[in-house]
């Protein structure tokens, strides 16, 4: 019997038992569609996480952070200089593997006020104009301050949309977008001019959510307006979205402005330590928090550097370390923080999601396969006589084996194809149910994998029943009632 005939016979048999075949296929359909849908969800998640990774500046960005002096250098603590502009200039001149150096001076506990409204922005940073590039900011309105603004220590600032929302009202509340370029605000009672505003950073899923809500009338709020605090906004709970909230909550001012207006000014409660002391002025851990405490402190909070080539991360960091050990008199009071951790976290999360999804799908496909085997075994028991007749009129072991195997494989193939169709419907259903979540992306690879898997399951499930059927003794099979 040629294979074409075998397939035709297989189809006939399946068609003759339509309902049973459908039930049998159901296992495979569910298995394939869950595998494809699962991988589509993971892919969507992956896209969302990559988005977040790019938003924080990509892998090339490395932060130089202060670090406690190691034990073996504790006796040199009073000589430690901290991270200063010296490091910036030294790195620019002497570390060719680093393409960009951005000094950042951060002051906490400041209050921005305008017309009775106020905000304490999370990131109040004095920096250089190139911070925009390194931190992947986009100035949507107005301009970034430039070197001249910095040189003259002008009172200008560039704000994120969260700051605008707090001081001028968000587009959602007002119904139109306010672009406060040219407006003046007070930062700790000093007048600053807003010269630029960043675009509104948000993940794809938040964007979609916002666009969806645009069509709906705003819900009436219950109770008085209240801030739910950082990180608990509408998008809280979704992976990665805090990064966008964080980024929107930013004010950039020129580095020199920061230095002159907020750092060099003699503070009220100077802790009595000199500029180069280590104890209380440490900017990254400014102890007093809410009450602004201005201590003359020329040190930078952080230094962000950009690695020229991601493949030469280690070499570039070594180079930077060598340079900085020189400027720090050999005292290792700094460390490098790369974004590899986050990247690894993302990779791990994706791997885990993929693994658990894959296992669930594989199990359901396996169950589908067991279903096929079960039905095929029942089917051949039912057809012992038929098999006897076929053998009596000349069917060989191979003929019967092929017939049963083909039936099993045909069931699996039809089930697999139906599963692919179902998976598409399923994903559309998921999108319709929660349009704001990361869009699941069905990949061709996952479809091919799922289909191949279903065929393999069909073959494996058919082998034993086919063998059992083909081995039947025709005499006994003919006697079988």
């Amino acid at each position, binding site marked *: 019997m040629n294979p074409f*005939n075998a397939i035709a016979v297989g189809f006939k048999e399946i068609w003759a038992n339509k309902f049973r075949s459908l039930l049998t296929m159901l296992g495979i359909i569910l298995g394939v569609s869950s595998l494809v849908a699962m991988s589509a969800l993971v892919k969507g998640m992956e896209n969302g996480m990559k988005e977040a990774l790019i938003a924080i500046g990509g892998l090339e960005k490395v932060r130089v952070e202060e670090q406690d002096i190691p034990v073996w250098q504790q006796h040199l603590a009073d000589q430690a200089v901290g991270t200063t502009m010296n490091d910036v200039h030294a790195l620019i001149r002497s570390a060719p593997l680093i393409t960009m150096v951005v000094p950042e001076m951060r002051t906490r506990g400041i209050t921005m006020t305008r017309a009775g409204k106020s905000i304490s922005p999370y990131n109040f940073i004095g920096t250089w104009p190139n911070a925009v590039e390194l931190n992947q900011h986009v100035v949507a309105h107005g301009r970034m301050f430039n070197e001249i603004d910095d040189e003259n220590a002008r009172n200008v600032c560039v704000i994120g949309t969260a700051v605008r929302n707090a001081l001028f009202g968000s587009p959602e509340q007002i119904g139109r977008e306010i672009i406060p370029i040219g407006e003046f605000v007070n930062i700790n009672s000093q007048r600053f001019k807003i010269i630029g505003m960043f675009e509104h950073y948000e993940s794809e899923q938040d964007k979609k959510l916002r666009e969806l809500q645009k069509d709906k009338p705003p819900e009436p709020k219950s109770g008085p307006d209240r801030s739910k605090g950082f990180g608990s906004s509408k998008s809280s709970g979704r992976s990665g979205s805090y990064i966008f909230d964080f980024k929107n909550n930013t004010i950039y001012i020129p580095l020199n402005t920061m230095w002159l207006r907020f750092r060099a000014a003699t503070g009220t409660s100077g802790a009595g330590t000199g500029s180069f002391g280590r104890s209380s002025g440490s900017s990254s851990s400014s102890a007093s928090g809410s009450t602004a405490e201005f201590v003359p402190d020329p040190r930078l909070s952080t230094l962000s550097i950009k690695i020229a080539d991601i493949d030469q991360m280690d070499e570039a960091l070594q180079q930077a370390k060598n340079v900085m050990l020189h400027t720090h008199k050999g005292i290792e009071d700094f460390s490098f923080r790369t974004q590899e951790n986050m990247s690894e976290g993302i990779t791990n999360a994706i791997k885990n999601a993929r693994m658990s999804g894959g296992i669930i799908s594989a199990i359901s496909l396996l169950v589908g396969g067991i279903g096929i085997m079960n039905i095929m075994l029942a089917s051949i028991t039912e057809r012992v006589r038929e098999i006897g007749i076929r053998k009596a009129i000349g069917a060989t072991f191979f003929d019967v084996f092929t017939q049963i195997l083909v039936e099993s494989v045909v069931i699996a193939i039809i089930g697999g194809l139906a599963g692919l169709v179902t998976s598409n419907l399923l994903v559309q259903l998921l999108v319709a149910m929660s349009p704001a979540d990361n869009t699941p992306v069905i990949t061709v690879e996952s479809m091919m994998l799922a289909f191949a898997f279903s065929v393999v399951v069909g073959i494996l499930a058919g082998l034993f029943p086919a063998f059992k059927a083909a081995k039947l003794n025709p005499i006994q099979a003919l006697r079988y009632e």
Partner: protein
Amino acid sequence: MALIELRGVSKIYHLGGEEIRALDNVDLDINGGEFISIIGPSGSGKSTLMHILGCLDSPSKGSIKLDGTEIGSASARELARIRNQKIGFVFQFFNLLPKLNVLQNVELPMVYAGCSSRERRERAMDALKLVEMDNRAKHRPMQLSGGQQQRAAIARALVNSPKIVFADEPTGNLDSHTGETILKLFHELSLKGSTIALVTHDPEIAAVTPRKIEIRDGKIARNVDAKLSGQLDGPKFAVGNQQN
């Protein structure tokens, strides 16, 4: 040379340590074109003999030659090929596949022989004409009477032009009148040159064949050829309708 030659054929079963000789040292020749009956009470070994003659089973001992080739030690695959090409079976319970129509049932042996679909159709229709069933080709077996089903089964047995047709109690499940027409059909086929072996326990049916082989306790008890002994020059029912 005889179409089938059995020499010292035994079939031995072991049941709980006890040796059962279903066939015991049987010698038998069947010539081409013969119309014979194998007769014996149930348990006599006639079914075993038919299974071995029909290549459904292999003997424990002895040699069996079909059409000049030794098949006593043939593999299962070779036996399947021989069953397909050289042997036709007609069963008591017709054994048509219920899901296929008559034409497809008749085509089935040719499917396993690897014939083209066009050839299958033509030869199946020829075979159905021979048994006067060509007008029922598209019917399902369940839509046919017992006699019609048996005719279709005979067409299936003949369709690959086998050397010999075995009919195992072909009238056992039919009323006597229908049974008789089936026997008549076998007789006509034998006149056209087919070799036919009827397996039955009923001496009346055996009476229609010129040659009778009687099996008892696994041995050939009698081997009567009416043509040789001159007792009969044709089947009884052809001479007169003495049974009904």
